[in-house]
């Protein structure tokens, strides 16, 4: 029982991080069809910024805020400098461009901060025992912040005019243009939100994972697994999918074999492709277009 609750807690924590990155990816994917593979690297940069600003000022939370704001700006810059320039290019070029971005960001991190991992103190040290599971406060913070954010994102997308225009652009680019929305501006906004979410994930994770140049790689890959699992372009689906993936990974590692832990998400992905290729929440028409 203890193992079960402990594993569940770990899975939900991990899943919250995956869900944050995947929600951003789903947004960017839905609005612009851009496979932004560099969100993992954005999370890495977010982690480093949290370490740096947090270390200079002594406040983890200030570091986190700076990381989120800086990453939103980075999202705008990369969109304007890279993806917007390539908007007429075939989708395979976009994927490779995103990989080029990963290399630029990782290379920059390597040059600026070097290969050694940097550790960040937990925001609130200590832990609490719930139903036999020992959960550090940092993990509770991760889950709490993530939940608050998902609620906020959902309200933004369903209740505000800007959010509605993002969804409209995702549903039909031409239709959105016809009613006077500007898909390019919406795209810029979606990319800023996606990058900020990735930066937040990195900032939340850094006390647990440390910061080093390749720390975001698994996040990037898992975010893709999540959006296939959820159905491409479904933000709410990405949240659920992220938690499911985190749980699958944690339970697989605890009950099956720790050695093959990285294989479970991949097997889950293949299973989804075979059984339900449109994803858990996707519409058939989208996947089989």
């Amino acid at each position, binding site marked *: 029982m203890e193992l079960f609750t402990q594993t569940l807690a770990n899975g939900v924590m991990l899943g919250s991080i995956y869900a944050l990155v995947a929600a951003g990816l789903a947004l960017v*994917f839905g609005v612009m*069809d851009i*496979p932004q593979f560099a969100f993992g690297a954005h999370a890495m940069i977010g982690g480093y910024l949290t370490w740096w600003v947090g270390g200079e000022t002594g406040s983890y939370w200030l570091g986190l805020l700076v990381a989120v704001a800086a990453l939103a700006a980075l999202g705008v810059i990369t969109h304007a400098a*890279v993806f917007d*320039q*390539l908007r007429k*290019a*075939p*989708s*395979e*070029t976009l*994927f*490779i*461009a995103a*990989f*080029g*971005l*990963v*290399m*630029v*960001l*990782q*290379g*920059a991190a*390597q*040059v600026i901060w*070097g290969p050694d991992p940097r550790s960040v103190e937990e925001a609130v040290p200590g832990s609490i025992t719930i139903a036999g599971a020992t959960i550090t406060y940092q993990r509770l913070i991760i889950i709490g912040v993530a939940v608050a954010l998902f609620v906020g994102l959902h309200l933004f997308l369903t209740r505000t005019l800007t959010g509605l225009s993002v969804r409209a652009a995702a549903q039909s680019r031409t239709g959105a243009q016809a009613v006077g929305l500007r898909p390019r501006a919406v795209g810029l906004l979606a990319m800023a939100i996606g990058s900020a979410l990735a930066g937040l994930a990195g900032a939340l994770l850094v006390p647990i994972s440390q910061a080093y140049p390749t720390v975001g790689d698994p996040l990037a*890959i898992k975010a*893709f*697994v999540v959006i*296939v699992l959820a159905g*491409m372009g479904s933000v709410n689906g990405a949240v659920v999918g992220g938690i499911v993936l985190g749980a699958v990974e944690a339970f697989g590692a605890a009950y099956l074999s720790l*050695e*093959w832990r*990285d*294989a479970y998400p*991949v*097997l889950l*992905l*293949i299973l989804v*492709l*075979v059984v339900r*290729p449109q994803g858990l929440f996707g519409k058939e028409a989208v*996947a*089989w*277009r």
Partner: protein
Amino acid sequence: MEMTGRVLAWALVPLGAVLPFVLGSPYALQLASLVVIYGGLMVALNLCFGYGGLVSVAHGGMFGAGAYATGVLMTTHQWNFWATLPVAAVLGCAMGGLLGLLTLRMHGHYFVIASLAFGLMAQLVLSRWTAVTGGELGLGPIPTYSGLPGVSFESPTARYLLAFGFLVVFCGVSALVVRSPLGRRLAAIKQNGRLADALGIDPVRTRLAALLISSAMAALAGSVYAPYIGFLDPSAGGIDLNFKTGLALIIGGGGTALGPVIGAAVHVLLPEALRGAQEYSVLALGVVLLVVIRFAPHGVAGTLRRLLVERERPAPEPEAEEEKVSTNA
């Protein structure tokens, strides 16, 4: 233009064959050999990626599977090198077939993502299936190529020539496929999938055929790699290799005959050139890639070809899509 390109390509064959006699140092010959070996992987990738428009991040996995198939059979089971080739080819085909059946019915990004999953899985199997692959500790020493009647492949020059022979065969097969009805169907699907569909071209079957050929080729390129390098670890089929070869192909020029060879040269030589400034090498590669995608989206070979087209035909520059068709016609 068509003629110029083909003449240029075939003129490179004797040039490549005399290369080991021109190169002074064993180090240069080793780099040349690696370029030729990775060239095989790039030709395979180009068939799928360049001509078929299928961005595969799994071909490195097939390369690794082929390398390990040959490596394990030669080392653990004392097989003859040449006998391992059919095994590697079948293994590559099986992986490509599975990937294709799972994903080819779906549009766009699904293929990339599923191929990424395949690439990851291949790397995981290579590193975790320790009983067979030796895991992270690696597999080796792998004996060198088995001789043929009257020929031995002991010397570095002979080994280069063997790898070069494979590359020429791969290029030949690729050229045949591209000019065949299959290649024309592939080009039609890449240019306008719906129109091709309306004309009665089955996109799934066409792409699956191309993927099978290209997967077998990637695995065979891996088979050539294993005895040359003599030692394998999971990075031989790693996810890093997938991305770096894909990126090198873009820089070289996808969908062209020379692109894969230029790409292989970039893949092998650029990291060597940046050896003194290791920490800058990833950054430099990324910047080069982004600049190439932005300003020369057809890569080095594609840009050269465009320059040649413009010189021979002063007519207005054809649209990119039209150009692709004319070369395949």
